[in-house]
């Protein structure tokens, strides 16, 4: 009976929609709590029983962020760290990927194997000698100490090499015949073709470093060089926990990444799907 069938299908649609909505709300719940709390006045935050949404709306916590934390400093540190690592890493990764994907030379196989091995090694194993090395250079608690060891990485090289292998090389060969230098071919012909891959990789690099905790935690020693995740995690550990300003600071920390993500969601998700890197 068609009527029955239609009713059944409608029920099924409503059921899956309700399930989906419940899942979405559960996933967003901690973030909703964070945002809602950031607008609550202090007495509401510590009252029992706790409620999800604020009854009175206040911006005090956002003002409080700047009173309790050197927030502007931490924010700028994070921008400089994540920004510099992203830009430099794209350059170095792509230069190496170009050599591996396009140039003929002896030892190429060995270099590629090295990249694959480094892809498997967890970076935590390098932490102690790296700290020792940077301490010897006087680079602890400096931007160069934070940034230089991250200037290139095996995943970026691997990712761009795979991409470059997949794009046609007719243009380059023509340019080579015309006597163009390799640098010119790399910079003028290959890089423009690689823009989609560079954007995806740039996003990964930026997000990874913006969010990272362990590395900035160890290399920075005070708020003059701490990034936001390290600064907030330590602030939480050291003080009587004031959740209002902490939640406001958390919102301000997550906001740039979330906005960025929502704008370029499609490219981002496609990048994850094809490569499996976070």
């Amino acid at each position: 009976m068609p009527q029955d069938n239609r009713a059944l299908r409608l029920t099924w649609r409503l059921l899956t929609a309700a399930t989906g909505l419940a899942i979405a709300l559960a996933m967003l719940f901690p973030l909703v709590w964070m945002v809602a709390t950031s607008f609550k006045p202090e007495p509401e935050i510590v009252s029992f029983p706790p409620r999800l949404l604020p009854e009175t709306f206040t911006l005090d916590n956002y003002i409080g962020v700047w009173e309790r934390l050197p927030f502007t400093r931490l924010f700028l540190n994070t921008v400089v760290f994540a920004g510099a690592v992203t830009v430099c890493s794209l350059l170095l990764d792509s230069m190496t990927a170009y050599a591996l994907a396009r140039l003929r030379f002896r030892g190429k196989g060995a270099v590629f194997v090295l990249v694959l091995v480094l892809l498997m090694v967890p970076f935590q194993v390098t932490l102690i000698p790296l700290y020792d090395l940077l301490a010897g250079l006087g680079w602890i608690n400096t931007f160069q100490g934070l940034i230089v060891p991250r200037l290139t990485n095996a995943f970026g090289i691997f990712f761009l090499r795979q991409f470059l292998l997949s794009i046609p090389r007719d243009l380059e060969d023509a340019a080579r015949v015309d006597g163009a230098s390799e640098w010119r071919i790399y910079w003028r012909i290959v890089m423009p073709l690689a823009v989609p891959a560079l954007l995806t990789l740039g996003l990964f690099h930026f997000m990874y470093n913006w969010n990272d905790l362990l590395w900035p935690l160890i290399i920075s020693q005070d708020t003059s060089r701490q990034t936001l995740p390290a600064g907030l995690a330590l602030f939480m550990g050291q003080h009587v926990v004031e959740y209002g300003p902490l939640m406001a600071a958390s919102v301000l920390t997550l906001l740039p990444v979330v906005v960025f993500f929502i704008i370029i969601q499609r490219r981002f998700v496609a990048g994850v799907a094809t490569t499996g890197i976070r």
Partner: protein
Amino acid sequence: MTTSVPAAGGAPRRRPGSAGRRQARAAWLFMLPTMAVLGVFVVWPMLQALYLSFTDYEVFTPARWIGLENYRALLSDPAFGNALVNTLYYAAVTTPVSVALALGLALLLNRRMPLRGFVRTAVFVPVVISLAVVAIAWSFLLDPNIGLLSHWLSQIGIVSEQGWLRDPSLAMPAVMIVGIWKNVGFYMVMYLAGLQSIPTALYEAARVDGAGPWPRFRRITWPLLANQTMLIVILAAIATLQAFDQIFVMTHGGPFFRTETLVMMTYRIGFKEFQFGYAAAISWALVLLIFVLSMLQVAYFRKRSVTY
């Protein structure tokens, strides 16, 4: 190495022309900055960590070679045994749970349904944000006095007097839930990509043959996702073995070291107690663990993967 290579040592079979030599020189120049950075800041520290693990290096005393002493000490150190068990426990629960949930979500969100885009975005958002920062909100949610989640849970009879994060039996589940919540969207997206690569003709043919939803999943979806599952399980296991961020923020390894993982212990021994040699040995134990698991998984799935 092939037999056609002359024994006289590495002379190329075909003498490269000047163009070839120029290309080789260009290649090494292109790779020079990368080689310098990787060499000094990755490869050297890695080998140095291996060397340090055979010494008694502490921050103010020079390194002295002690052979396998650190590794022998690890085997009888209850703190290491505890961290190893915690790490394996964390990985053994969060890996299968995350992967199973991700598969379920991908199957649900691969079909046409209202709100599909919104639900996918909501599931994926935790992937892109800082785990350390969002763990602060999770700590707050679980606060025994003013946390909303612990209040709701107490209403349905799940009560923890001292609070989840101070409760020796609930702290680990709490950090596990946060770890799963953070990563499930990532694996879901990988599964969605896998699902979309399965030809719909296979399902149509199965439907014509009268196969119901379960046989279709069992005989088509699951075997054709085998490679995807392999990749996801490996990535998930490797990631969970390195758990650190939410643990540092929420429990700091406590209560009573119940949530201290290997990375947490490396951090404590290396950067709180400054026993660099011993900490290096712990970190190499982690490398070994990750390496062995990756190899086991690759071998296992290589035998089981199916292609049509």
